[in-house]
């Protein structure tokens, strides 16, 4: 610290041991000033420290004396070419003004705040800050939880017993039953409907394969039914083959003839179709 000038003063610590060492002027001669504003939190803090150095009840400090001390302090700092933050200088200017008004009583303008009130306001601010510092210290001096006094170290846990309450009612039950039974029935019906059938498409494919080899009239539907599928399928095969043969006849692929009603139906490949 370039501006450090130490005297015989003991380095001063905050009551709680916190913060940097603060070296401040005491009531001694001005030459003993120790300049170090680093430790202060602004001009109010510095003023409060100076006020405490008046060693009187903070409510009875002399603002005039305080202003003089502050200005001396600032002067000393400036002589030593210490850089001071702007608010220290603003406070110095204001205190110089206050000092002049306190020292040279003038006829106060009606609009002006009396100098005594200005001084009182500053005193109030210092007292209030001091009060809050003391309050903080008193707070910290209290017995603290977890340091001085203790809560139950092993609180006993609440045991929450959960009982399940089923919200199902008789309607849910009956619905579940009815729906399941019905579903099972529907399921069965599907199986019934899945009758053995021979589709027209299947029949047509079979017919096309057969007539490729046959030039003569023949009862192909009968043969298909007899040889290609299970007996159960016969009615379906006959019907599908008949439809398929009509289709093929219309397309000119084969010819159909039937002698009389309800007699056998013969088909053959149309010669020119090959």
């Amino acid at each position, binding site marked *: 610290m370039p501006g450090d000038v130490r005297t015989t003063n003991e380095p001063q610590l905050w009551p709680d041991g916190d913060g940097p060492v603060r070296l401040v002027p005491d009531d001694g001669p001005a030459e003993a000033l120790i300049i170090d504003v680093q430790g202060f939190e602004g001009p109010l803090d510095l003023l409060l420290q100076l006020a405490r150095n008046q060693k009187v009840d903070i409510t009875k400090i002399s603002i005039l004396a305080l202003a003089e001390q502050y200005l001396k302090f600032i002067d000393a700092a400036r002589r030593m070419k210490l850089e001071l933050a702007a608010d220290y200088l603003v406070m110095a200017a204001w205190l110089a003004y206050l000092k002049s008004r306190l020292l040279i009583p003038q006829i106060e303008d009606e609009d002006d705040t009396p100098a005594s009130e200005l001084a009182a306001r500053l005193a109030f601010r210092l007292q209030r800050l001091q009060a809050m510092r003391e309050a903080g210290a008193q707070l910290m001096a209290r017995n603290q939880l977890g340091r001085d006094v*203790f*809560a*139950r*170290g*092993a609180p*006993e*846990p*609440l*045991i*929450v*017993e*959960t*009982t*399940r*309450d*089923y*919200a*199902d*009612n*008789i309607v*849910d*039950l*009956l*619905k*579940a*039953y*009815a*729906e*399941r*039974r*019905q*579903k*099972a*029935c529907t*399921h*069965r*019906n599907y199986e019934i409907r899945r009758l053995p059938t021979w589709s027209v498409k299947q029949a047509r494919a079979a017919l096309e394969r057969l007539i490729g080899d046959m030039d003569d009239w023949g009862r192909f539907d009968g043969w298909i039914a007899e040889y290609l599928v299970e007996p159960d399928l016969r009615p379906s095969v006959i019907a599908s083959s008949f439809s398929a043969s009509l289709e093929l006849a219309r397309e000119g692929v084969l010819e159909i003839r039937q002698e009389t009603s309800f007699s056998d139906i013969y088909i053959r490949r149309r010669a020119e179709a090959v």
Partner: protein
Amino acid sequence: MAKSLRNVAVHPRAELSHQMRVVEALLFAASEPLDEVELAGCLPEGSDIETVLSALKQDYAERGVNLARIAGKWTFRTAEDLSFLLRREAVEQKKLSRAALEHLAIIAYHQPVTRAEIEEIRGVTSSKGTLDILLEIGWIRMRGRRRTPGRPVTYGTTEGFLAQFGLNALSDLPGMHELKGAGLLDANLPPDFDMPSPRDHDDLTPDEDPLEEDDLQPPLEMDLPETSDETA
């Protein structure tokens, strides 16, 4: 020791009560039970920790909190008769799974019914857990064993089932016509669709054997074949 004895002679009660206060505070604040060595370490030399503890124990004997010795260490514990204060009852609202509800309904209508029969009615295999859940809730019970190969267990409903669903008796379960009337069943069901009317008495049916001793023990259904989980 001599010093302490002298002190005790001067004001023995004050001495003891101070030691009791210290032990009381230590035990209260400790997060774990403390043993006598730990406690004595905080007392003035020559204190008799045993005396302090027994006096403290007596002091708390009738209180809402007692001084207890657990595994050789000391701690405060809520008096046993007040342990109910530390219990809270919470009710969890639940609903049965769809599968469980179907099982229950089928058992209700078709009882006595075996697992295989339930599966046949539902058209899907049952997961093993479903019947267990219903047994655990206490809505179904094992009634007996069917006199068929494999002697499968038969299931039926319980009084708890009737209570849950607000039924006086099983015969209060609505029949097919009522279900149709309520629109729960389709009006045009296949003619062979039938619904049993459950009987009220608990007697075994002629084709049921009573359960044996072993059947009532868990694990349940050990003797039934494993089935794969149902898909529905």
